[in-house]
């Protein structure tokens, strides 16, 4: 069921599953519910932005950025 929600069924599995769905209301409902649950999580969980200090320190790690920024400033 979860694999169906996530489009992770193999081709064969999907055929069997679809066939089953066509004659089983219970599973049909459950699939809908599972899809819904997935959607809720996707929509409702807030993604936080990483703090600027963290971004900066990661950027520091790859100092190329800094030099290139200097470059482009000079170039302008």
């Amino acid at each position, binding site marked *: 069921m979860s694999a169906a929600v996530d489009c*992770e069924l193999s081709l064969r599995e999907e055929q069997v599953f679809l066939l089953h769905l066509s004659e089983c209301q219970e599973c049909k409902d459950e699939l809908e519910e599972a899809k*819904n649950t997935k959607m809720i*999580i996707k929509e409702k969980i807030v993604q*936080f932005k990483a703090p600027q200090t963290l971004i900066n320190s990661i*950027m520091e*790690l790859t*100092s190329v950025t800094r030099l290139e920024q200097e470059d482009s400033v000079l170039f302008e």
Partner: protein
Amino acid sequence: MTAHGDACFKLIILDSKPFTWETMIFEPGRFQFMDKPDQTRHVKPGTKKETLTREERQKQLEFQKEAVVHLNSLYNYALHLTMNPDDAEDLVQETYLKAYRFFNSFERGTNCKAWLFKILKNNYINRFRKNSKEPGKVDYDLIKDFYHSIKDVQNDTSEADSDYFHSLLHEEVYQALHSLPEEFREVIQLCDIEGFTYEEIANMVESPIGTVRSRLYRGRKLLREQLEGYAKKYGFNTDTDQ
């Protein structure tokens, strides 16, 4: 436009109007001299940039393109694991340090985000879980506090909708998710929030794909029950179909 003569300097015109020599006298603001043409655009020997080897530069650029773009996702994952912004920051930092050091062992063409998540998870296990008092126990107050302490100014878009799903608040879903046993929460998070494939998740949690499947199934079912609990609390009738 380069002025000729013996002196080697470059004249830079700052606008697109035609240049005459009178300009130099009457409109000095329109140009400037550069006595050593192009020097600034090239690497001066011995500067910091030159000390970086070509390979290192290449690595840095690639690392930025492949790895640094996932910073926000990693931070959020770290937040979910640690429930503490400072720890999350440390964890992400450590992860990037490690990732950069071992970037050569990253298999090109595979999902870099999955690779980073795996490193972060390992770091987390090594560093934080060792010291935790009661692993697996959920502290609802902590979740609540945590959520409020970090909550963005993000607008709560949940309007008074008749559909109870839409009336669920971020916080409630968040709490429901965190009330699940960790093995369920983890796969749901990796699948639904981060969008990893089953194969990637299986690799990350070091379990077979079949286990990932069944955990997702059971986890979602549990979550669903939790959410219905909230819905009932607020008087929504969950028996009607959606």
